[in-house]
C-alpha cells in the first residue's frame, strides 16, 4: 500500500521528470541463472536510448521489466515517475507505454491481416471504431503498409513485420516506446527505413522517449545515449562519442570490446585475413550452381540463382532473414530438391542419395543442430563413427579437435549448458571431424558476441588458408562479409551481385559494404517497382512522410482505465475467432474430431453381447439331446459352429478363441431324462473377457429355464412354477436393451468435455509459448476480459459441435430424442461453458502446448470416462472417485443427456442438473483469473 501511494504522489508531482526510467539495485534471476546483476541506471527523458551488447547479456530482461511485462524481483523500477511494482500504477500507466518484444512479429498474430492486427490493439486501448479506423489509416499511410492492409502478418517480409509491430505499438500515442532488437534479421535497406521512420515519429512527438536494444553497433552510433551491457551488468554509459573517446577507439565495435572485462578479451586481437594462395591442382569448381530455383506454391523462395565457388575459397552469402540463403544452401546439400536448375558439388550433380559426396562436405545449419542430450565428447564421437572413421583413429581425432577448438574444459558438459559462442565452436568441430574438403555454414555466428565471433573466424581462416578447405558461409553481419574472398548479395530470392567485397564497394562507389548493399537493394526495388506493383519491400518510403498524428481527442485513455470493458473483451473474442477459423488443424479437430470420435465411441463402447459362436459336443445324439441344442441355436445371440468330437478338440477350439461357448451333453442324456435321473449338461464359457462371460452365463441360464418351461408344457401341459412367485423384470427407458441407445447419449458429454477443454487449454498456452501473451501483460486488458474473451469462441464452436452430435445421434445412430431439445440445449450451453473453464484451469498449470495437451487428455479423459457415470453410475462409486465424480460437470450433463434422450425428461425434471452446472461456471472462471498472472516472472 505504501508503494502505491508513493507512486501516485510522485506521478502527480513530477510533471516532466528529467529521467523517464530510474532503476535502483535491480537484480533478476531465472532459477539459478543471474540475468541482471545489481543494475543502477537513470535514463534521460525525451531521447533515444540504446542498449548494446550481444545476445543473452540481459538487455531483453531489462526492457521487459521497464515495460511491466515481467514482475520486478529485487530493486526498484521507476517508469514515468511511478513504481512498476504497484499494480495500480501499472494499470494507469500502461496506455502511456508501448512495448515491442524481441523476435520478428513476436506479439503479432500471424494469421491475422495487417489491418486486423492493428485493429485488435486499438480495441485493447478502448478506441471506438471511428477513432480506430482513422488512426489505422494514418499509421498505414505513414509506414507505407496501406496496400498490404489485407495481407496476413505471416506473409510479410521481416522489415514489414517490424513496421507492422510499430503501427501496433503507436496506435495509442505512447510517451515511452520500448523496442527490443527491432532490426535483427532485417535487410539493411529496411533497417535504414525503419530508423528513418522512428526519427520522423520522434520529430512529431517531441516528448516521446525511445528505448532500443540492438546487436548492431553501427546503428547505435546514431543514438543519443548508450548503455553497454555484458553478463547482466552495465559496463559503460554515455553518448556514442563519449564512449568512443573514453576507450580511445574509432568504432563502437572496438570500443565495446575494450569495455569488456579483462578475462573476456584477453587474447583478442584484430583479425587479419591472409590472402588466398591460388595453388589449385584442378580447376574443377567446388560448387557450381546453374539457374537454381525453388518454388513453394505461388511463392518463389529462390529465383534463378547461379554461382561458382572455387576450391579453397571463402565465399559469403549476405542477405536478410528469409531472402533465400538457407533454401539455396539446402538445395546445394541435397536436403531440398530444386524446382529447376542444377547444382554440382566437386563436379557431381547433387543427389539426395549420393552418400560419397556427402563424406567430402561438412555442414552446420542455422539453428544449433547437435544433440543436447549427448555430451560434447559423445557428440563428436557419434559423428566420427557415422562418418566411418577407422575405430583406432576416432579417439586421437576427437582429442586433437578438442584441443584445437579449445573445448577441453567442456568435454563432459552437455551443449545446452554452454554459452552460444562455445556451442557454435563445437558445431564447427563436429562439422570438420571427418576432415571434409568443403564446409557449408548457414549463419553460424548469429547472436554470438563479437569476441567469440572473431575466435570463430580465426578457426575458419585457419581451415581455409592452411588446409585448403572451401568455405561457403552465410551471414547478415557486414564485417564478416568483408572478410570473405568473394560474396554474393542476396535479396528476395535473387542474387543482386557477386564479387569481392572491395569490387562491390567500388562498383557502387560506396565507402562501406553496407552502403554498397543498400545501393544494390534500391536498384532492385526500383526494378521490381517497374515490373510489378506488388513488391515485398515498400517503395513509397523516399517520399516525404505524411503527418502521423492529426490531433485526435484522447478518448481512448479515459476508457482504457475502466475496470471492465466490453470492447477489450470483444477484441480478444473477435481475434480468437479469426485465429481459430484460419487454423485448419484446430478447426478440423474441433468440428470433425468430435464426429469421428462419436463414431468410434458410439460403436466402440458397446455392451451388446451377441453373435456368439458356440458348438456342441453331443455324446448322446438322441432326439432329446438335439432338441436341447435346438433351443440354444434358436436364440438370436448364438451362432452354431461345427460339432465338437472330443474333449481335446473342445479344449483346442476354446483356446484358439474360435468358440465362446461349448455345450457338453453327457452320454445317455435322453435315457436319463426319461427315467427322471436328472442328467447334467455342462456349459463351457470362455472367461477371458469377464463381462462377456457373465452375460453369456446369463443367456445360458435363461435359455435353460425356457427349455424347462417348454419341456413341461409339452410333457405335462402345464407351466411349471419354478419359484412360487413371478419375478417380472421391466427394462425401462431402453426396452430393447440396445447398447447404442444408452451409450450414444453418454458419449456426447464425454466429447463435449474432452475437445473443448483441450482446445481452450491450447488456446491460452499457445499465447504463452508464442509470446503474444505479452499483450496481456503490457496493455490495459484485464485478466477477466482476456479469459472470457478467449472463452466465447470456444463455447460457440462447442455448441455447433453439440448440435452436430445430437443430429448425428438421431439420424445416423437412430437414437430417438424423447425429451425436450430446448432443455438439453440449455444444459449443453451451461456445460460447455464449464468445460471450457476446465481447459482454462488446466492452462494455468501448463507452460507448453504439448504439456497442456497431455494434461487435458489424461486428466479430463480419466475423470470423465471413469468417474462420471459413463460406465459405472456415480452412485456406485465410493470414496475418492465418488468425490471427484460429484465435483466434475460431466456427471450432471451425462444425467441430463440420458434423461432427455432416453427418459423423455423436460425442463422441470432437470432442475437437479441445472443448478450444479450453473455453479461450476463462476467457480472455474474465478479460479482461472486468480491463477493467471498479469506479469511474467
Amino acid at each position, binding site marked *: 500500500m505504501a508503494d502505491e501511494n508513493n507512486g501516485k504522489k510522485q506521478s502527480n508531482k513530477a510533471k516532466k521528470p528529467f529521467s523517464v526510467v530510474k532503476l535502483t539495485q535491480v537484480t533478476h534471476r531465472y532459477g539459478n541463472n543471474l540475468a541482471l546483476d545489481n543494475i543502477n541506471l537513470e535514463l534521460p527523458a525525451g531521447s533515444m536510448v540504446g542498449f548494446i551488447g550481444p545476445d543473452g547479456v540481459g538487455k531483453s530482461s531489462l526492457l521487459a521489466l521497464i515495460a511491466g511485462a515481467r514482475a520486478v524481483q529485487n530493486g526498484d523500477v521507476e517508469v514515468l515517475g511511478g513504481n512498476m511494482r504497484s499494480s495500480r500504477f501499472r494499470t494507469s500507466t500502461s496506455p502511456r507505454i508501448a512495448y515491442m518484444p524481441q523476435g520478428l512479429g513476436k506479439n503479432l498474430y500471424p494469421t491475422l491481416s495487417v489491418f486486423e492486427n492493428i485493429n485488435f490493439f486499438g480495441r485493447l486501448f478502448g478506441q471506438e471504431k471511428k477513432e480506430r479506423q482513422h488512426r489505422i489509416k494514418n499509421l498505414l499511410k505513414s509506414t507505407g503498409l496501406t496496400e498490404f492492409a489485407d495481407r496476413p502478418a505471416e506473409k510479410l517480409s521481416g522489415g514489414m513485420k517490424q513496421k507492422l509491430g510499430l503501427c501496433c505499438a503507436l496506435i495509442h500515442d505512447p510517451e515511452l516506446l520500448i523496442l527490443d532488437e527491432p532490426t535483427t534479421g532485417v535487410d539493411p535497406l529496411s533497417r535504414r527505413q525503419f530508423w528513418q521512420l522512428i526519427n520522423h515519429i520522434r520529430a512529431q512527438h517531441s516528448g516521446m522517449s525511445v528505448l532500443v536494444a540492438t546487436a548492431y553497433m553501427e546503428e547505435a552510433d546514431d543514438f543519443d545515449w548508450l548503455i553497454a551491457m555484458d553478463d547482466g551488468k552495465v559496463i559503460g554509459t554515455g553518448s556514442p562519442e563519449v564512449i568512443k573517446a573514453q576507450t580511445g577507439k574509432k568504432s563502437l565495435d572496438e570500443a565495446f570490446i575494450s569495455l569488456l572485462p579483462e578475462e573476456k578479451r584477453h587474447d583478442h586481437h584484430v583479425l587479419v585475413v591472409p590472402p588466398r594462395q591460388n595453388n589449385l591442382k584442378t580447376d574443377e569448381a567446388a560448387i557450381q550452381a546453374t539457374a537454381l530455383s525453388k518454388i513453394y506454391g505461388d511463392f518463389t523462395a529462390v529465383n534463378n540463382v547461379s554461382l561458382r565457388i572455387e576450391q579453397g575459397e571463402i565465399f559469403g552469402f549476405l542477405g536478410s532473414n528469409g531472402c533465400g540463403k538457407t533454401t539455396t544452401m539446402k538445395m546445394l546439400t541435397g536436403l531440398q530438391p530444386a524446382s529447376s536448375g542444377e547444382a554440382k558439388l566437386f563436379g557431381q550433380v547433387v543427389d539426395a542419395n549420393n552418400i560419397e559426396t556427402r563424406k567430402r562436405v561438412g555442414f552446420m545449419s542455422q539453428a544449433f543442430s547437435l*544433440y543436447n*542430450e549427448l555430451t560434447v565428447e559423445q557428440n563428436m564421437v557419434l559423428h566420427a563413427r557415422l562418418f566411418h572413421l577407422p575405430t583406432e583413429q576416432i579417439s586421437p581425432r576427437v582429442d586433437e579437435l578438442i584441443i584445437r577448438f579449445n573445448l577441453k574444459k567442456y568435454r563432459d558438459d552437455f551443449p545446452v549448458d554452454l554459452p552460444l559462442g562455445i556451442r557454435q565452436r563445437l558445431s564447427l568441430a563436429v562439422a570438420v571431424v571427418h576432415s571434409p574438403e568443403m564446409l557449408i555454414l548457414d549463419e553460424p555466428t548469429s547472436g554470438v558476441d563479437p569476441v567469440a565471433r572473431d575466435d570463430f573466424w580465426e578457426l575458419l581462416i585457419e581451415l581455409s588458408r592452411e588446409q585448403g578447405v572451401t568455405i561457403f558461409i552465410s551471414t547478415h553481419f557486414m564485417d564478416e562479409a568483408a572478410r570473405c574472398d568473394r560474396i554474393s548479395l542476396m535479396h528476395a530470392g535473387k542474387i543482386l551481385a557477386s564479387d569481392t567485397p572491395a569490387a562491390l564497394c567500388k562498383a557502387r562507389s560506396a565507402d562501406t559494404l553496407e552502403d554498397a548493399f543498400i545501393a544494390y537493394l534500391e536498384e532492385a526495388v526500383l526494378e521490381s517497382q517497374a515490373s510489378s506493383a506488388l513488391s515485398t519491400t515498400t517503395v513509397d518510403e523516399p517520399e516525404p512522410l505524411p503527418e502521423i498524428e492529426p490531433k485526435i481527442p484522447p478518448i481512448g485513455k479515459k476508457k482504457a482505465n475502466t475496470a471492465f470493458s466490453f470492447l477489450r473483451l470483444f477484441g480478444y473474442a473477435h481475434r480468437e475467432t479469426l485465429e481459430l477459423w484460419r487454423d485448419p488443424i484446430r478447426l478440423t479437430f474441433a468440428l470433425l474430431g468430435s464426429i469421428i470420435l462419436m463414431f468410434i465411441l458410439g460403436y466402440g463402447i*458397446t455392451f451388446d453381447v451377441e453373435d456368439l459362436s458356440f458348438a456342441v459336443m453331443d455324446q448322446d445324439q438322441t432326439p432329446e439331446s438335439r432338441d436341447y441344442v435346438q433351443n440354444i441355436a434358436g436364440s438370436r445371440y448364438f451362432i452354431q459352429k461345427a460339432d465338437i468330437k472330443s474333449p481335446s478338440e473342445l479344449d483346442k477350439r476354446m483356446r484358439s478363441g474360435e468358440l465362446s461357448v461349448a455345450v457338453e451333453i453327457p452320454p445317455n442324456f435322453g435315457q436319463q431324462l426319461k427315467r427322471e435321473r436328472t442328467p447334467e449338461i455342462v456349459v463351457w464359457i470362455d472367461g477371458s473377457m469377464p463381462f462377456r462371460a457373465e452375460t453369456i452365463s446369463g443367456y445360458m441360464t435363461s435359455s435353460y429355464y425356457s427349455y424347462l418351461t417348454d419341456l413341461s408344457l409339452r410333457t405335462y401341459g402345464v407351466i411349471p412354477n419354478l419359484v412360487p412367485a413371478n419375478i417380472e423384470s421391466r427394462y425401462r427407458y431402453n426396452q430393447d436393451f440396445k447398447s447404442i441407445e444408452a451409450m450414444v447419449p453418454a458419449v456426447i458429454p464425454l466429447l463435449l468435455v474432452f475437445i473443448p477443454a483441450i482446445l481452450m487449454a491450447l488456446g491460452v498456452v499457445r499465447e504463452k509459448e508464442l509470446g503474444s501473451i505479452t499483450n496481456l501483460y503490457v496493455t490495459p486488458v484485464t485478466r477477466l476480459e482476456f479469459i472470457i474473451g478467449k472463452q466465447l469462441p470456444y463455447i460457440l464452436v462447442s455448441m455447433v459441435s453439440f448440435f452436430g452430435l445430437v443430429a448425428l445421434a438421431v439420424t445416423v445412430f437412430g437414437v430417438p430424442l424423447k425429451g425436450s431439445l430446448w432443455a438439453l440445449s440449455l444444459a449443453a450451453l451451461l456445460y460447455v461453458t464449464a468445460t471450457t473453464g476446465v481447459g482454462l484451469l488446466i492452462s494455468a498449470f501448463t507452460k507448453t502446448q504439448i504439456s497442456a495437451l497431455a494434461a487435458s487428455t489424461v486428466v479430463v479423459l480419466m475423470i470423465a470416462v471413469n468417474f462420471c457415470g459413463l460406465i459405472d453410475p456415480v452412485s456406485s462409486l465410493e470414496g475418492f472417485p465418488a468425490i471427484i465424480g460429484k465435483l466434475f460437470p460431466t456427471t450432471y450433463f451425462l444425467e441430463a443427456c440420458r434423461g432427455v434422450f432416453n427418459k423423455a425428461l423436460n425442463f422441470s425434471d432437470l432442475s437437479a442438473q441445472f443448478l450444479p452446472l450453473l455453479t461450476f461456471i463462476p467457480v472455474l472462471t474465478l479460479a482461472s483469473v486468480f491463477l493467471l498472472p498479469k506479469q511474467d516472472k
Partner: protein
Amino acid sequence: MQCLSNILNLGIKELRSLWRDKVLLLFVFFAFTGLIYVVSSATSIELNNAPIAVVDGDQSQLSKRIINAFYDPYFKTPDVIALSAVDPSLDNGSYTFVLNIPPHFERDVLAGKQPTLQVNIDATRMSQAFIGDNYIQTIISAEINEFVQGYRTVYTLPIKQSAHIMFNPNMTSVWFGSVMELMNVITMISIILTGAAVIREREHGTLEHLLVMPLTPFEIVIAKIWANGLVILLLTTFSLFIVIEGFLQVPIHGSAALFLLGAAIHLFATTSLGILLGTQARTMPQLGLLMILILLPLQMLSGGVTPRESMPDIVQNIMLFAPTTHFVKFAQAILYRGAGWDVVWPYFLALFVIGSVFFIFALSRFRKSVAFG
C-alpha cells in the same frame, strides 16, 4: 556392414537421448507400472455396488428377508422408498434397480397364488442392467424357495445345467483389465516415443543434420525403431512379470516368450506408425491432436475393450487393418487361454505385413518432411 554400424550407432544415440530425458522416462515407467496397476485394479465392468431400492408394500417376514439378501460387493444396501418415489428416483438416476414388493406378497406366496414381484431396471445403465437382473432373479428365487421350504413342496428340475468358466473361473476383472491395459500402454507409448522423437529432432534441426551426413533415411528410421522398440519390450517384460504376475497376481497361462515375440512384431508396426505420424505433423501440438484421433480408435475398436463380434461388420472389417486388432487377438489367446504357435502365427504374419506397409510409407515420407519443414 557400414549400414549395420550406422544403425547401431544411431540407435545408441537414441537410447542416450531417452536416458537424458528423465521426465519422459519417468512418465513411460509410470505408464508401465503405476498406470496399469491403478487402472486395472480400479475399474471393473462387472456388477459392483449397484444402487438398489425397494418399495416394501408387504412389510412381512419374507419381504424383509428379500431386502436383507442384497449386500456388497454386488449391491449397495437397499434403500426403502415409497411407491410415489419410484419414477422420480429412476428419472434422476439415483438407482439402477427398484424392486416393488406388492402388498400381501408373503400371504399370496404361501397360498400358492403365484404373486408378481416387479423389478424396475434403468436399462440405460448397460454395465449393470442385464447382469444385475440375473443376480436379482437368482437371489430372490433362492430366498423365496428357502422361505417356503417346509410349507410347500418345491418343483424339482428334470435336467441340471452347470456352467464352467474357462481360463478365469471366478471372472476376476483384474485378469482381463491388467493385460488389456498393458497392451494399450504398449501401443500408446510406442507411438508417442517415436512420433515425439521425430518431431523433436526436426524442431532442433538435428534431423536435417543427419540427412546431410552419409546416412540413408532407412538407417535413421530403423535405428529409431530398434532403440525405442527395445526399451518398450524391456518394460513390457518387466510389467508382465513384476506388475501383472507379481503385484496383481494374474496367472499367465501361455508362453511369455511367445507373447514377447509377438509384442516385438507389434512394436515394429506401431513404432513405424509413430514415425509416420511424426513426419505428417509439423509441431508437437499437431502431433498430439493427430495422435488422439488415431490412438482412440486403435484402442477402443481393437476388441480389447468390448468384444469385436458385437461391432458392426464394417467396423470389424476396417479394424482388420489396424495392428491392435491382431495384437489383442494373439495376446488374449496366449496369455488367457495358453494358445501356442499353431494358433497365433496368422496374427503374427498379419502384424508383420501391416508393419511393413507403415514402415515403407514412413520411409518415403521421411526425406520430404524435412525438405518442407
